[in-house]
């Protein structure tokens, strides 16, 4: 039987979209610094947000590898659009999908899949970054439901989201064993959203603080069983790390492509700069970093798809690929000489956007500690 290869076909489809629609407008979108609503909805109409969910339940019937291929391709075009897409496919909708009631699926999940509603994910608090045991947003049983009070920060999509998946503490004495996810629609009384943060990179990603003051929600808005929050978070942690690694792969590819193109074009001392060994060395390092990143990333995604536990492999992929993306951002701005420092070219954007990859899903300090432990230390 002759059939297309799904991975190659999805990659090609996304690459076409990126090359014809996203990359040519990347500079304009980045400079506007607004949530790219039109592109967000268009990606929704393509059925991208459902890539991880089964087709008979409103998804597109893909898997983690396909999800990461999409993230990678979009990141090659514009990191912030890739980041928003990644959020909508995974963290923003995962617990709603698994634990939401049929009405919640109808009212929020399915529109989110079509790109008509924006999702977000709220773990971080002013006092709880890497240390989630410090989560201090309280969920207290209240009549038929819960009352939520507290504050979240660094909420990607905060200013534009229609609903939030929020990690709250139900039993402070238990610390990490007392946390749970709750579903909070934006229009619930007592939810307030700060002004967007001013950011170094991914400037169209809108990030803000959220305050919950005496927010009342029904019992069914608790996503997952009592005390299961950390376990649920762990169930997608490897996938979050793979996704971040895939974003880093996309950025490296973009930086490498621009570097090669420029090295072919730019002539100094009577020869194109690509003929100089110092430039060749940088290109060789970038190409090797990229290949290694890709191998690590998709090894881990395939393990996830085969339901093999792979937190170590996913952590190594995230750590290596995102550090490599930082190196690529550095090299491309050198290869382009002064033009790498100009806002006219994309190189500066790769240099800024690569920092986005360093924090979410575990900082590298934390990842390296874990990797050392898994290595036997």
């Amino acid at each position: 039987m002759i059939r297309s290869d799904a991975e190659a076909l999805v990659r090609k489809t996304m690459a076409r979209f990126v090359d014809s629609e996203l990359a040519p407008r990347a500079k304009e979108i980045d400079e506007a610094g607004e949530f790219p609503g039109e592109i967000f909805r268009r990606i929704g109409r393509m059925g991208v947000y459902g890539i991880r969910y089964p087709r008979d339940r409103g998804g597109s019937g893909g898997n983690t590898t396909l999800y990461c291929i999409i993230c990678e391709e979009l990141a090659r075009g514009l990191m912030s659009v890739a980041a928003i897409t990644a959020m909508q496919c995974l963290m923003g909708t995962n617990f709603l999908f698994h634990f939401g009631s049929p009405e919640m699926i109808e009212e929020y999940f399915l529109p989110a899949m079509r790109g008509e509603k924006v999702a977000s994910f709220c773990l971080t608090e002013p006092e709880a970054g890497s240390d989630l045991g410090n989560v201090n947003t309280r969920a207290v049983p209240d009549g038929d439901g819960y009352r939520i009070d507290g504050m979240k920060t660094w909420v990607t999509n905060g200013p534009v989201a229609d609903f939030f998946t929020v990690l709250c503490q139900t039993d402070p004495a238990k610390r990490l064993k007392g946390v749970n996810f709750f579903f909070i629609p934006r229009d619930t009384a007592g939810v307030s959203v700060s002004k967007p943060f001013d950011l170094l990179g991914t400037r169209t990603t809108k990030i803000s603080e959220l305050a919950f003051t005496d927010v009342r929600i029904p019992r069914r808005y608790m996503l997952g069983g009592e005390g299961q929050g950390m376990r649920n978070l762990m169930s997608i942690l490897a996938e979050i790390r793979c996704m971040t690694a895939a974003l880093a792969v996309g950025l490296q590819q973009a930086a490498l492509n621009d570097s090669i193109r420029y090295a072919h074009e730019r002539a100094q001392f009577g020869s194109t700069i690509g003929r100089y060994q110092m430039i060749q060395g940088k290109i060789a390092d970038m190409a090797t970093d990229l290949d290694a990143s890709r191998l690590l990333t998709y090894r881990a995604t395939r393990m996830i798809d085969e339901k093999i536990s792979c937190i170590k492999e996913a952590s190594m992929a995230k750590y290596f690929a995102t550090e490599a993306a930082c190196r690529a951002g550095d090299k491309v701005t050198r290869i382009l000489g002064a033009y790498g420092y100009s806002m006219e070219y994309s190189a500066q954007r790769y240099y800024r956007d690569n920092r986005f990859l360093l924090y979410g899903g575990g900082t590298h300090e934390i990842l390296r500690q874990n990797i050392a432990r898994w290595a036997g230390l």
Partner: protein
Amino acid sequence: MNIIVLIKQVPDTTEVKLDPRTGNLIREGIDSVMNPDDRHALEAGLRLKESGGGKVTVLSMGPPQAIDVISEALGMGADRGVLLTDRAFAGADTWATSHTLGKAVEKIGDYDLILCGRQAIDGDTAQIGPQVAEYLGIPQVTYVFGMEEVKGRSMTVRRRIEAGYERLRVSLPALFTVTAEANSPRDPVIGSLLAACGAKAPIQVWDAADLGMTTAQVGLEGSLTHVIRTFPPKSQRAGEILEGSPAQAVEDLVGRLKERNLI
């Protein structure tokens, strides 16, 4: 209305390069894509289906990897795909290609309209559509950019001509070749793309025997023309740069154009 759209897989470039030594197309490192005009033909077909019902079948002749354009078409909303693939089809000229496609259209049967792209970016002959229509003995309209109402067994369309357009009423079944001006094609939908890769996808693969054709009727053997040599034309025209100040250069240029009665 049942519609058959003919789609061709082509190298992804408008600047196909020829190997200067052998005269062959350099295909390495070049992706294959759906011929750009065919995307517009498919979009036109999908819109007709959405407004008036019916089914859209896509048909392509090519090597096994041309399955990708069929899958993509299913991803965009086509209902069924047919791939014609057979080693014996290789080397077909436009006669053999349209003969084979015509046979497949007959085998698919029950159609009201056949849509083609205006032209393929690689072969570039714009012959296939008209030849398929001739083979089937149905009316054809080329350069269609607008489709108006369907009334019973006829349809009104607009066709681009040099200084404007023609409006034509055509009886169905008919074949149109569609230009890029017609519409802006939709994006494929990922869920449908993935379904098109699955075993249960509504895709059929036919070879020469399935079409009841002998190897003598298809491919190189079935072709009436044979390529003796392919070569890039030598560029003979030398440019000339007009020197002097801009004002001088403009004057010089205008003078020369007048001299040749060009302005």
